[in-house]
């Protein structure tokens, strides 16, 4: 075994180690943003679970605002079914969009509920309702933050994936470019049409 062979082997070993390093990095980055997605799902679930409690607690105060409460409940039920659909296949873009717009309708219905409840000081003073509203606000933040963390993760992953020579490895092992998650779709930005 000559000197050249040894040097050749060493060079190959270094390259292989470097490639393994890149591969492992890609894997960990991909798992990071996937975890972000799981978080969104968990928090949406939590949001859906909180809303019936809030509606139940507010019923006693909002005798004349039944329609507001019904709106909230219907929007919530819609969102639940959309979420179940999307959870089955997160990569399906149309399902994700449906979930996005359902969540947006729910947000609007809730905003309407908050606006109405401004007129009922006793309602706002109720401790249970205060707590539920805080929990709900927190959950909405969590959804937003989870989405943001997901998008940041996707960005880091995409940047790493596209750099040379990482893009070769990524191409070889099918690390696909991933799109950022937009829950707010253009159609959802329009005013909601809710009819009863």
């Amino acid at each position, binding site marked *: 075994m000559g000197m050249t062979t040894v040097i050749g082997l060493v060079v190959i070993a270094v390259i292989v180690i470097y490639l393994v390093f890149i591969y492992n990095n890609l894997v960990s980055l991909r798992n990071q943003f996937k*975890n972000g997605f799981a978080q969104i799902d968990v928090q949406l679930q939590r949001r859906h679970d909180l809303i019936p409690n809030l509606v139940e607690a507010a019923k006693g105060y909002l005798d004349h605002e039944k329609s507001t409460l019904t709106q909230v409940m219907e929007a919530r039920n819609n969102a639940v079914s959309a979420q179940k659909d999307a959870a089955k296949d997160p990569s399906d873009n149309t399902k994700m969009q449906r979930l996005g717009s359902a969540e947006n309708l729910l947000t609007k219905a809730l905003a309407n509920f908050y606006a109405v409840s401004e007129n009922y000081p006793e309602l706002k003073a109720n401790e249970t309702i205060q707590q539920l509203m805080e929990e709900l606000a*927190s959950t909405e*933040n969590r959804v937003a933050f989870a989405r943001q963390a997901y998008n940041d*993760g996707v960005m880091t992953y995409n940047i790493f994936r596209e750099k040379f020579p990482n893009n070769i490895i990524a191409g070889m092992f099918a690390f696909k470019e991933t799109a950022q998650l937009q829950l707010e779709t253009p159609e959802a930005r329009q005013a909601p049409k809710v009819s009863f």
Partner: protein
Amino acid sequence: MANPGFFQRQAHARRNTGLLVVLFLTAVSLITLAVCLVGYMVTRSQSTPLPFHHWLLSSHGLTTVAAAIVLIGIGSLIRWIDLAGGGSRVAKMVGARLIEPDTQNSDERKLRNIVEEMAIASGVSVPELYVMDHETSINAFVAGYTPGEAVMVVTKGALAQLSRDELQGVVGHEFSHILNGDMRLNVRLISMLAGILMIGQIGQFLLRAGFYSGATRSRNRDGRAQAAMGMLGLALMIIGYVGVFFGRLIQAAVSRQREMLADASSVQFTRNPEGIGGALFKIGMTSGYLDTTSHASDMNHMCFGESARMKFTSLLASHPPVEERINAIQPGLLARLRSRLRDTEPGAKLRQKAAQAESVRMADLASQVAGAARGTAGNRLSPLRSSFNESARQPVSQLSTRVGTVTPQSEAFASNLLEQLPSTFRNLLYTRAGAIQLCYGLLTYHLSAAEQKHSLGLLTKHPLLGEQPDLLTKLLPTLAKLGEPARFPVLELAMPALRKLDKEERQILLANIQKLVAADNRLSLFELALSTFLNRHLAPGAGHAVPVKYRNYRSVKPEIERVIGLFARAGTSSEQQADKLYNEAIAGFFSGPPETPAGKVSIKELKATLDALSRLSPLLKPGIIDACGHCIMHDGKVGVREYELMRLVADQLDCPMPPL
């Protein structure tokens, strides 16, 4: 994206930190080298005259290097073991209380929620949460060597005074410290500093040893060796302490970079520069100094804002100046926050605890500046805050809960009063000249025409601040008609205009007020209340928080007894009833048999008493307000005198009062 700049700023801060750490390590190697140089000087005479770089590789040289490194290593290790303990140990050390995960307290619940939100945003696991119950300043810190055992400690003041968004900004900042391993970096730097300090300390020891033995055994034959030892000690000491000084400088600079990084990361996590900006702004208005723990300076680098007062502030500060931080977060944010503050509280520096006074007493102004002031009113004033429920009948003993809150009653009172005021009169109060003349008018309207002329003649001639008869003729009749109950509310209305005065004008105004008060050679309760009120809000020191001096009722016992005695007598006309009220009110403060209330209190004594009470911890003040309220409200009626007395006390204690 709210602010696209934060990724760049993070990268910048990281690069700067890297540079500084390299600089720090260079400094440590230079110190080792310097120690070797000293060793070379000492041993040169004994060994053959080798040049320094050859000597360094000889056995002597290598031993010296090894010795220096071992010394630094031991010093560092001792400090490291001391510091690298778990975060919960640190939290207990500063006297913080663990927040249970299922806490029912709404503030703590909110904090928990925010922390969990930030954990999602940053991808760091949720740290254990602690709260410092007795700390009213705004601060927070994280401790713990690894992210897994990190704890977050938040002061009660931060919980109470910051809005949800601002608290989120602070928590995001702290999460960055966890995420970026700042605690570890800092512990390492501090340990290394301790190692360098060790060299200095050994030098000090050698110097002292050389000096003492040299003194006791002078003219000894090894006197020269003693002197050499002294010289060696001196050299090591200088190296050690100079090294520590520069090390500290670098360490502080590293810490400042990490703070910038954390601020940028907080914006990344929350996407809301206003949150952390607002929190920093509030800290800038008060201070984040931790007063209840002796470990403040150890915590300094981990805190959200400076926790201890330091010398060489700009060089050794572990945090950049607040203005700089706000500007870095978003240029122009500082100006926006300032103007917002001006809008909510016209013209004044933030008087932290009394800030919401305006919204209380001038309900109409409060409605103009929208819910902003009202929304935060409850949050700013933790100890006095409560969920005051209008429909429930308010028991007398909870007067303090009404401090700093707007109630429908007080709003009704304000609008009622405003309706009574002629519109020309009201508009006058909103102008500077009118407001000034009102102050003069308030002090003179009850006098006869001749006395008025005499008093007003005392005023300094000044185009704005002098006497203006045409304005006074408009004001005086209305004042006389409204009578005593309106005096304070009217003054409140004039405050925004008075705050627009600049520093010199304020001083002249205060001097003029003093002259009018002194004109008849006696000081009435209203005069004292008015002049302390104006002094409090317009004097140069206005807005500075009064330093807390007393932390329990016992240390101000005579003062409390005096005030309550005064109130007991003001609250009722019968002597017997007064004694009874006094005993009832004082029972809450001191155990043991009550003493009889003190006799007459002069206005001067009252002033000194209130001065002392204002230095009480804010958490203890509500008790005093309650006791006073108990005395004056026992018969269900509050006279004008009683109200003004109450106002005076509440003002002095920095607790704004709604009309009773």
